[in-house]
């Protein structure tokens, strides 16, 4: 199985992407879950990604939005990033102890792939979002989708500040730092595009 460096994974998450197959206007209900999908390509057309969006019908706070990378030279996909609702406990990294019911983010780690584990094993709790819609806005910003307004105009409005503790920033950069730790921001890339 192919391995990745953390820099490769980070750049796959952060590279500029365009929506090539937009999500359906309405989520489809199937077997207890509201579902939607879309496909993305890197801006240069070289890389293929897919996004899934899921909301549990009984517990709307149990949602998941994920980015899968489909390498062209290898079968299978690698889940790069998943934003989840507070559906239950989760292991905070591996093999560290478990965390409680919180909104949380799974981010692929090179060490997991190297060890033959699920790339996105382990998660970190986040206060960057507190609803499905906030999570989707956060997610699309994190994965750097540059034509969101074309297909998801309702998400183009700026995010409302969340009720973060006073000593924690709630600017977009602050949120990114809070959630994804040392991952480099892609503001330079966005400036280039504009």
């Amino acid at each position, binding site marked *: 199985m192919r391995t990745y460096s953390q820099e490769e994974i980070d750049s796959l998450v952060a590279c500029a992407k365009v929506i090539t197959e937009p999500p359906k206007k309405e989520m489809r209900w*199937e*077997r*207890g*879950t509201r*579902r939607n999908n879309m496909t993305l390509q890197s801006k240069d057309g070289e890389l293929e990604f897919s996004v*899934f969006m*899921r909301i*549990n*019908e*009984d*517990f709307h706070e*149990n949602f*998941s939005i*994920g980015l*899968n990378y489909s390498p062209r030279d290898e*079968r*299978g*996909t690698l*889940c790069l990033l*998943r934003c*989840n609702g507070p*559906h*239950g*406990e*989760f*292991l*905070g*990294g*591996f093999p560290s102890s*478990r965390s409680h*019911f919180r909104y949380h983010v*799974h981010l692929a780690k090179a060490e997991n792939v190297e060890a033959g*584990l*699920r790339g*996105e*094993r*382990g*998660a970190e709790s986040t206060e960057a979002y507190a609803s499905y819609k906030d999570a989707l806005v956060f997610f699309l910003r994190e994965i750097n989708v540059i034509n969101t307004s074309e297909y998801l105009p309702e998400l183009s409005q700026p995010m409302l500040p969340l009720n973060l503790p006073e000593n924690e920033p709630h600017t977009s950069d602050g949120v990114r730092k809070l959630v994804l730790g040392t991952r480099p921001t892609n503001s330079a890339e966005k400036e280039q595009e504009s």
Partner: protein
Amino acid sequence: MTYLDLLRDQFNNQVSFRERRPGVLQLVAPLYHEDGDMVDIFLEPTDTGRENIRICDHGMTLMRLSYYFDIDTPNKERIFQRILSENRVIEDKGNLFMDAEPETLYPSVLQFAQAVAKVSSMQLFKREVIQTLFYEMLTEFIEDFLKRYNPRPKVLPIPERDDLEVDFEFGIKPRPIYLFGVKDSSMARLTTISCLEFQRARIPFKSFVVHEDFENLSRKDRSRITSAADKQFISLDDFKANAEQVLEREAA
């Protein structure tokens, strides 16, 4: 002792309960999916009027599965239903559940968790994983059912060209049959080249191609291989259904 106390005791105090809705408790137990998320198990009263407890997942197992895999064919549905029935689990609009008496709750929870794990592992049936088994499945079928046509694996019709290998040769007279398994475009192109090279070398043979998925090839690849090969099977299922009859005709 309530059933919750009993269950906590049986789990050696390694579990707790969280009320997610009135009367609906989520079991917090050290049972985790591969990604580190806890297995979603809920306990609630049954709607049967008895004192049984319903162990269920409120659709979370199928939701998680759908990140990577859809149960969208009759065959996948059959496997899914078999996993459920073998574990005494029922599905209602995506909700997996089983009812248990209070005194059997502990083994029932473990059984339910096992069923959830098995359903979750259906993602291993993904096309890209199964595809890697294509040659194994083709070989197994040939060895099990086509032995009387004298199959020989890995044959080199032009000995000095070890890059042009035939997957199986069937020793049928007057002309042997060269069979190629093709699972993707690169194999389709190699098969096309091989057939043309064997023809150029004036080797007497007939070529059979078994595709993993003919429709998945590009239009140009389909045209090229159709022009070069004598007989094609569009899928392994097609080959399994028709191979004997076709080989019998060739051998007649």
